[in-house]
């Protein structure tokens, strides 16, 4: 029983640090680099991706007996795109402002390799409960990493956080940080910092 709980906890925790999709596995970088221009966008993207990830992991895990391995990829794609379209409509209906700022990146969640990757590597081989936990963990890891990037880029590049000015009028924003090169700089430093931290722990 205790082993079971430990296993489930590890399944969830795995995605947050040890196999963080962005900073460790380095997958799903395209939406990360493009959308993390502000914290609001990052959180919106993180939550939308997590929702799709959990739903697709659960569905893939449940329909396993029905899907022979030779045709699993097309089925994954149908499942994933169904949930992405659902998120797209829901956002248009209930959060039109967020949808406007995320723009084309909502439909592009379909090709986010975190989602297809977890369906293939985890959900297709595991039961429903671990699959959902894996989705939650990976989603949380993605959400944390992209939010961290969004915060750093918004503060340095615009002097604001969540649209509220925090560095004051006298701060001259480093516009580069909210342009594409800024995304690469921030993600590089974050990966470096994470590697340094975990290395120290291992020694």
């Amino acid at each position: 029983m205790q082993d079971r709980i430990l296993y489930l906890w590890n399944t969830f925790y795995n995605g947050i640090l040890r196999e963080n999709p962005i900073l460790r596995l380095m997958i799903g970088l395209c939406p990360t680099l493009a959308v993390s221009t502000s914290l609001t966008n990052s959180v919106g993207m993180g939550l939308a991706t997590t929702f799709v990830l959990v739903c697709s992991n659960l569905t893939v895990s449940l329909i396993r007996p029905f899907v022979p391995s030779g045709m699993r990829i097309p089925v994954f794609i149908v499942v994933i795109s169904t949930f992405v379209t659902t998120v797209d409509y829901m956002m248009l209906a209930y959060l039109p402002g967020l949808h406007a700022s995320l723009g084309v990146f909502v439909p592009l969640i379909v090709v986010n390799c975190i989602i297809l990757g977890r369906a293939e590597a985890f959900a297709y081989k595991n039961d429903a409960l671990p699959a959902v936990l894996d989705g939650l963990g990976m989603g949380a890891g993605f959400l944390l990493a992209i939010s961290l990037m969004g915060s750093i880029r918004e503060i340095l590049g615009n002097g604001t956080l969540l649209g509220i000015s925090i560095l004051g009028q006298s701060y001259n924003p480093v516009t580069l940080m909210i342009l594409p090169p800024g995304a690469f700089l921030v993600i590089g430093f974050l990966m470096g910092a994470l590697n340094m931290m975990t290395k120290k722990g291992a020694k």
Partner: protein
Amino acid sequence: MKKLADYALRLSIVCVAASGLLALVYQNTSGRIDENITKEKLEKARIVLLGRADEIKIMEYEGTEYFRGFAEGKPAGTVIETSGAGYGGPVRVLSGIGTDGKILDITVLSHKETPGLGSKAAEPAFKDQFRTKSPGDVDTITSATISSKAVISAVEEALVMYEKVKDAR
């Protein structure tokens, strides 16, 4: 061959189930989505008429929708949506035009300009110029010339359209 038929059947079942689910979601959200779009436009139309209109009517000219504001039953201004070619795609602009044919105020509905550079064309520092200057005299933004010009040409287009619809009832 048997395997192929089996795969086709299974994939079809998955697709039918997915379409069913999507149809359900669409049915439950499409009304709200249309409502949101109209609501947003009406709200912005009110703003670009500087609060002069207490009632906004949706009108049509050759298939293009525009808005006319009324105050106590009398026309108080016209709101026209146009777009200009920006750096990252069309820049959609809503222009509020007074009964004298001059711009009252404008707002940018949507754009895909570079954040921090072109996006400044949607900010008050730039767009508020239209309240006092004619589109040709507006100062463009440094490092965002294309985006600025997109807004200017959209406003000019709105003024051209206004001439055609100003007497419509």
